[in-house]
């Protein structure tokens, strides 16, 4: 074990897997707005890490950087010990990072099976790219059956599915391939209890049985405690809290967030008085 691993292990007793992802000092500005001020984070194999924080704390920006959709201004990223520089979503996919965005990135007019294979189409004819529709239909049916996701038909346009079914299709698309790290942006938002249970089971199965490492972003702390092994709070663009869920509680997390929020308001007042 390296010193960084020992450092990490001190924070995290719940998971024994080796480190799969690490970021150091990730920063990102949008014009004058600072979204991230230096995010240091790590993730272990098979671990489910919850990422919480207020609106605008930088959670979504951080995820978009991890998946290569946006590039950081500064900072380093390591996947399985190797430093990586993602220039596109394809680059992050190449090392096994998959993302389910809050907006799900589904195309409403396309049928379920085409959404499942979007940018991963099975084609014949080389560069001409003729779609092998029947093969994709069959594999889609098979995979959705394997992970127990029910849809009326793989030919149904996604716009006809319920919110939970859409979420399940998006998770299914991300996990169909050889995924190592799965990023989930608010996977349980706008979902009924039964549909939430489906996603929760899916996430547990992926991490425990397939060894997938998962980062879950959520506003709802109850979801975090249900899904995750460890929780990180991103506040004002840095990770300000890092504990295994067994070492903390809903109450501690809530009061921590409230105190951070108070401090922010106080410092905001102070800044205004100074100005």
């Amino acid at each position, binding site marked *: 074990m390296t010193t960084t691993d020992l450092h990490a292990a001190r924070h995290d007793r719940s998971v024994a897997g080796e480190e799969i992802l690490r970021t150091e000092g990730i920063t990102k500005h949008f014009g004058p707005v600072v979204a991230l001020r230096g995010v240091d984070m790590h993730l272990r194999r098979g671990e489910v890490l919850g990422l919480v924080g207020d609106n605008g704390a930088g959670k979504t920006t951080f995820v978009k950087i991890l998946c290569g*959709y946006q590039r950081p201004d500064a900072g380093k990223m390591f996947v399985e010990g190797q430093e990586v520089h993602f220039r*596109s*979503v*394809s680059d992050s*996919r190449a090392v096994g990072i998959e*993302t389910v*965005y809050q*907006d*799900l*990135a*589904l*195309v*409403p*007019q*396309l*049928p379920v099976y*085409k959404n499942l294979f*979007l*940018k991963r*189409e099975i*084609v014949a004819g080389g560069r*001409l*790219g*003729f*779609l092998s*529709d029947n093969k994709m239909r069959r594999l889609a049916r098979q995979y959705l059956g394997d992970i127990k996701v029910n*849809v*009326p*038909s793989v*030919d*149904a*346009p996604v716009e*006809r*599915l*319920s919110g939970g*079914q859409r979420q399940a299709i998006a998770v299914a*698309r991300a996990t169909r391939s050889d995924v190592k790290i799965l990023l989930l942006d608010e996977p349980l938002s706008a979902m009924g209890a039964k549909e939430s249970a489906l996603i929760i089971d899916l996430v547990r199965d992926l991490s425990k049985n397939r060894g997938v490492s998962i980062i879950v972003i959520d506003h709802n702390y109850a979801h975090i405690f249900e899904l995750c092994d460890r929780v990180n709070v991103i506040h004002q663009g840095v990770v300000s809290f890092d504990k295994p869920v067994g070492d903390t509680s809903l109450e501690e997390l809530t009061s921590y967030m409230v105190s951070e929020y108070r401090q922010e308001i106080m410092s905001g007042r102070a800044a205004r008085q100074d100005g």
Partner: protein
Amino acid sequence: MSQAILPHAGGDTYATPSARTAGRSGIGWRVLVERREAAILVVAIALFVYFTVASANFLTVADLQNLSQFVGPVAVIGAGEVMLLVCAEVDLSAGTVFVFMPFVVYYANQDLGLPMLASIVVAVVVAGVVGALNGIITTSLNVPSFITTLGMLFALDGIMLVTSNAAQLTMPTVGTLSNVFGGYGWSEIIWSVVLVAIMYVVLNRTRFGMHTVAAGGNLVGASEAGVPVNRVKIWCFVICSALSGLIGIVDATRITVLDPGNPGTQEMFYAIAAAVIGGTALTGGSGTVIGAFVGAVVLGVLFVGLTIVGISANAFVLILGAAILGAMIANVQLARFAEKRKLPS
């Protein structure tokens, strides 16, 4: 022709399961609602029957050839516009490319002395470059394609007027090659059927077509999923422009007169009208190349039919306007109706 109304005949990938599993009584109605081409095909057949009954002369070979020569260019430019409308863009300069590329053939052949076939290839490539410019300006510089291609329309019209000194030219011809490219009376419709069939396959059966739908259906989502949306859009502009240039050369070879006084706007508007009447939405994400072809047939039957039964050509414009409005209203209402009737999931 009526075969295509049956749910299985078209093999359209967007046909929904409900259309396949519907009870017998519901099939016809559901297909009309869920397959956009079907409704307009009924209209096309009805018009065809009406004019056949109303005028003993309608089905002469000459009429059919006239009809085919109207339908050809509108259907091909329309197919190109469908690709762009599906990815939520539009090309207003396609008609100008259509009228200008024969001039490019003339310049390459007569002024530069290139062989005819090479001149045609050069002109189609130039058309593709015009499309690439439209696409690059639209995607990289964030100019709405309505504006980009409006500017391109005027710029190309200006280049055409300046280079020709606003004087008419005669399209050079060379035997068999020119017969293939428009000299033979039916060549235009043959070209259009072949090109539309190719575009049908491209849109419905290839990865590129799927990415085009994705780019128009959910631009952000498609790019998050890794679809190179800008590249897809640029290629759609190239395809639309190259198709317009190619069919323009065929059309000019048939007519033989190159008239710089025609900016090509009418051809462009007919093509967009055919696409819209055929069931392609302007909002992106859905569209049908076959529908645009049928839309072109509807316009052609109206145009030729009204002339034969003795109604002034001026009335055609009025009817065209009414047809576009009617088609758009029907399109929106049918979509709303289909939404209400969607299966419980």
